[in-house]
C-alpha cells in the first residue's frame, strides 16, 4: 500500500511539479481559453448577423441576396469537419500569419457563427410577432425595433443553447494540436510522452476542462436568471 502510494506521488510530481510543468498546463489552459473566448465573441457577432440575413425578406416574400449568402455560408461550415476548416485556415488562407492563436480563433469563430446563427434565428422567431408590430406601430424603424425590442428577447430565448455552444467550443479547441498550438490537451499529451506516463497528465487535463466548464455553467446560469427577471410575476 505504502509502495503504491509513493508511486502515485512520484507520478504526480513527474506530471506536474518536475521542471515546473504545472506552468505548461496553465499556459495551455490560457491558450485554450484565449481561442475559445475570441471564437465565442466572433461566433455570436457573426451568428447574429447571419440570423438577421437569413430572416431578411423581400416584400413579395422572395429570398434576398443576404439570405442566399447566409444559407451558403451555413451550409458550407456545417457540411465540413471543423478540423479540416482549421487546417485550411492554417495552411492555405492564413499561411503567412504568425499569430497561431489568431488563426485558430478566427477558424473556430467562423465555425461557431454558423451554429449560433440557427440558435439566434430560432430565438428571434420565438418572439411574439406582436412585439415587433407594437414597435413599428409607434414609428420605430425595423432596425430600432429589432435592436431594442426583438433581439433582447431573442437572446434571452437563445441563452441556454448558446451556453451549450460555448461549452462545445471550449472542448472543440482541443483540436488545435493538429496545427501544433500548445493548448491544454496538447500540453498534457506532450508531458505524457516526456514522462512515459499517461494517466496523470491526461486525467489532470480532463479535470481542468471540467472545472473551467463548471464555473462557466454557474456564471451563465446566473446571467440567465438575471435576464429572466422580467418574467417574474
Amino acid at each position: 500500500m505504502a509502495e503504491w502510494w509513493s508511486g502515485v506521488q512520484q507520478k504526480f510530481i513527474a506530471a506536474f511539479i518536475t521542471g515546473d510543468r504545472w506552468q505548461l498546463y496553465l499556459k495551455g489552459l490560457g491558450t485554450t481559453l484565449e481561442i475559445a473566448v475570441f471564437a465565442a465573441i466572433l461566433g455570436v457577432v457573426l451568428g447574429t448577423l447571419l440570423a438577421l440575413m437569413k430572416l431578411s425578406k423581400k416584400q413579395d416574400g422572395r429570398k434576398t441576396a443576404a439570405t442566399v449568402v447566409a444559407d451558403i455560408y451555413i451550409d458550407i461550415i456545417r457540411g465540413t469537419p471543423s478540423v479540416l476548416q482549421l487546417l485550411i485556415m492554417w495552411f492555405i488562407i492564413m499561411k503567412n500569419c504568425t499569430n497561431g492563436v489568431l488563426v485558430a480563433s478566427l477558424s473556430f469563430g467562423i465555425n461557431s457563427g454558423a451554429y449560433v446563427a440557427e440558435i439566434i434565428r430560432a430565438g428571434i422567431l420565438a418572439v411574439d410577432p406582436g412585439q415587433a408590430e407594437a414597435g413599428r406601430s409607434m414609428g420605430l424603424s425595423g432596425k430600432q425595433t429589432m435592436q431594442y425590442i426583438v433581439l433582447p428577447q431573442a437572446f434571452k430565448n437563445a441563452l441556454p443553447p448558446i451556453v451549450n455552444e460555448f461549452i462545445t467550443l471550449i472542448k472543440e479547441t482541443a483540436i488545435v494540436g493538429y496545427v501544433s498550438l500548445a493548448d491544454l490537451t496538447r500540453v498534457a499529451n506532450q508531458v505524457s510522452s516526456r514522462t512515459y506516463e499517461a494517466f496523470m497528465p491526461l486525467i489532470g487535463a480532463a479535470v481542468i476542462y471540467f472545472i473551467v466548464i463548471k464555473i462557466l455553467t454557474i456564471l451563465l446560469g446566473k446571467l440567465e436568471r438575471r435576464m429572466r427577471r422580467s418574467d417574474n410575476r
Partner: protein
Amino acid sequence: MITVKELKKDFGENHVLRGIDYEIEKGEKIVIVGPSGSGKSTFLRCLNLLEQPTSGKIWLDGEEITDPKTDINKIRQKMGMVFQHFNLFANLSIMDNITLAPVRLGLMTKEEAKEKALSLLKRVNLVDKADAWPAQLSGGQKQRIAIVRSLAMNPEVMLFDEPTSALDPEMVGEVLEVMKELAEDGMTMAVVTHEMAFAKEVATKCLFIDEGIIMEENTPDAFFGSPQSPRLQDFLSKVL
C-alpha cells in the same frame, strides 16, 4: 383627416377587403363592428400600413401614406395603435415601455418622456406600476398601459383593435373607461370592438363591415335603432 379610397387587401386567394371608401374627420369616434373574418381588423391595420394594402390609397392630413415615397415611420408616430393582446414590450419595465419610442425617435429627452409618462400613468391610476414588469400586471392594467404608451407619442388619432376582447369580463370596464375619457378629450378614434354599449355611448359613427366592404354606416342611434341591411339586422340580433 383620414381618407380611404378603393382599399383592397388580398391574402393569396382570400379577398379580405374588397373595396373600402371612407373618410374619418378630426375628432370623430368611429366604431367598427362585424362578424369575425369580415375584414374589420385588417381594415384598421391597413390604416397604419401594418398590413400593406393590395391596392387603393390612404391619406392622412392630405399626405398619401400608401405612396412608397412616404416615410411610413413618420406617419405612424401620429397614429397610436392599441392591440387585442396588449403587446407590451416584455423585456422592458413599464416606464421604459412608455418612454422607449419618444426618446429613441428623438421627440423628447429622457426626462421629458418620464415626466409625460408619469402624468399619463396618473391619469389611469397606475403610477405605482412604473417600475413593474409587464408580466406582473393584470390584463386590464396591461391594456391601460398600452393606451398610455401610445398616448405618450402625442398621436393625432388612435386605432383600437379589439382592445377588450382578450380581457377577463371584470377588467373590460376599466379599459373602456379610459377610452371614454380619451373620447371626451376630443381624440380622433377608430375602434374595432364587440362592445355594443360602448359603441352606442361613444361613437359618432358606426360601421358594419362584412365580406370585405362597408355594408352599412350610420349614427349610433340609427345604426342600432333601425338597421337597414338584413345582414346587419341579423348580426345585431345575435350580439345584442
